[in-house]
């Protein structure tokens, strides 16, 4: 049943550019899709493995910058030695962006074991800020506040058709959708497996997990690497779609956006970041015509606080519980007719 619903949604999403006239809405969908990929990756680390990493935007930005720089080419002076890089195909940039972000994830994963709790939160935020300041100040490499411009779009060499570059919204929508579906599949397979169970166990009760032989550091690092790599991939998609990136991509507010998406949607659930992403991706669109951007943000902040109070687990679990209780009610009224045949054992 669930599978059918999934296929239905996928089909629906594939059809959208064919009938959606509003180009602006399509653009919003693409950017929201990219953020949903980032939110899903954050969910793996925050929701499933229980690590309070608030520097996630760093992986996103590193993926974006690495991918852009690889495809643009650069020359920098490092301690008097000039390093020159010729432009490589965008796909190489995508791969490298993902890899570099993953590597940073490895470092953060290893670090989180030395530094726990609230301190880990602070370290991850600091890491993101340092990255932003480096991007801002290492003008030689990143152009600093002047931004990296003219970033080339994804280009595929298709047999028979030749070179196909994804300039427009139509093609980029499908690229993002495909990557999003792959990312979702990766995370789904991971969390539903033995490895995923180990991650969840380490979030739930670390000492207990360790006592049954689960190597906590290893799975924490694994979660961090995969999470960071997926975020880096999302960053790369972003860079080659909007074709211009500046150090503002590392702003804490983007991490907050991802966190809001995950928490309100439902951390530790597969659908949570998607639901949260759609809500907070489209809210600006709906709200922008009525109120100033500052007021929008006040609304988000207030909404986030409200959801934490009223639905602390998020929207998706609340909806599931509501559906579950409906099903139970109908089952109960059927079962009321039968005698209580429960096992009369020794327990109370």
């Amino acid at each position, binding site marked *: 049943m669930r599978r059918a619903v999934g296929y239905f949604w996928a089909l629906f999403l594939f059809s959208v550019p064919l009938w959606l006239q509003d180009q602006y809405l399509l653009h919003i969908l693409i950017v929201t899709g990219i953020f949903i990929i980032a939110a899903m990756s954050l969910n793996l680390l925050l929701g499933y493995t229980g690590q309070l990493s608030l520097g996630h935007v760093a992986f996103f930005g590193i993926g974006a910058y690495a991918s852009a720089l690889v495809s643009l080419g650069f020359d920098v002076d490092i301690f008097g030695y000039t390093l020159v890089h010729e432009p490589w195909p965008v796909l190489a940039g995508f791969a490298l962006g993902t890899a570099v972000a993953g590597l940073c994830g490895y470092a953060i994963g290893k670090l989180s074991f030395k530094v726990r709790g609230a301190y880990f939160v602070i370290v991850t935020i600091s890491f993101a800020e340092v990255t932003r300041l480096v991007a801002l100040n290492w003008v030689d490499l990143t152009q600093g506040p002047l931004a990296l411009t003219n970033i080339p779009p994804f280009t595929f060499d298709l047999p028979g058709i030749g070179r196909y570059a994804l300039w427009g919204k139509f093609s980029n929508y499908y690229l993002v959708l495909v990557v999003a579906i792959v990312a979702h599949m990766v995370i789904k397979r991971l969390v539903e497996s033995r490895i995923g169970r180990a991650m969840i*166990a380490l979030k*739930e009760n670390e000492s*207990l997990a360790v006592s*049954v032989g689960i190597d906590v550091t290893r799975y924490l690092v694994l979660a961090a690497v995969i999470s960071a790599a997926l975020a880096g991939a999302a960053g790369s998609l972003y860079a080659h779609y909007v074709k211009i990136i500046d150090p503002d991509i590392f702003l804490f507010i983007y991490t907050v956006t991802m966190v809001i998406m995950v928490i309100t949607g439902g951390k530790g659930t597969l659908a949570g970041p998607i639901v949260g992403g759609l809500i907070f991706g489209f809210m600006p669109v709906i709200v922008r015509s009525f109120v100033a951007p500052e007021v929008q943000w006040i609304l988000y902040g207030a909404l986030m606080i409200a959801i934490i109070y009223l639905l602390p687990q998020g929207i998706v679990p609340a909806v599931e519980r509501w559906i579950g209780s409906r099903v139970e009610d109908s089952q109960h009224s059927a079962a009321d007719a039968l005698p209580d045949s429960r096992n009369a054992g020794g327990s109370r």
Partner: protein
Amino acid sequence: MIEAQAASIPPALSVEHVTVRFGGLVAISDLNFTVTEGEIVGLIGPNGAGKTTAFNVITGFLRPTQGAVRYRGKSLNGLKPHEVASLGLVRTFQRTSVFQNNTVFDNVLIGLHRRGRDTLSDTLLALPRGKASERALRDQAWEILRLVGIERRSSEFAGALPYGDQRLLGVALALAAKPSMLLLDEPVSGMNAAETASFMTLVKRIRALGVTILLVEHDMPMVMGVSDRIVVLNYGRIIAEGSPAAVQSDAEVIRAYLGQGAKRA
């Protein structure tokens, strides 16, 4: 007769002159005892005698200030708890002994982690080997649930179980990790008489499967009834060691417990 057998079989666990100091406080002093393969040894003593500390040292949760712990000849010094568990030494916990927010079945599945043979690529690529491994784990989970006797509760959440069943689940979780030696930390605390009796049967069944058992308990009839040998701790030291009958009539043991409300002693 049991003592004679113990002398000819090499020890499974040997705790060798272990001392644990926290700053100025001595939690355990010169703890020295062995457990033979296939034995059931009970560790008893008044509250604060150092029993849980001993458990923590043996399973790698705590580093001894002095002394060493060996399992089947291999030194456990410096090993992390999950490495100790991989050697076959698995413990249960007195409190929070289960994963509260998971179902009973999932709890045991988590415990079976070590037995899984699938790799990351098997998982991500959904290879048949991964699926086969998963199926095998699920079958083993049912077996363990049946052995322990809580299979009818498999889809309930661990946190919602009655206390006695939670303790059973804690044991199931430990069994899932394929122990060759099991350390049970107050396994029957909170159980009523009927549950305790069936637990004692379970312990004997586990031993029959070849698992060595070391347990800490306050319930005297239970521990006396199930153990081959008793080790008594007080103020971090061993004050007596021997068969249940011998220990029960030991003068110093009686003195240690006088005034301490040992449960149903």
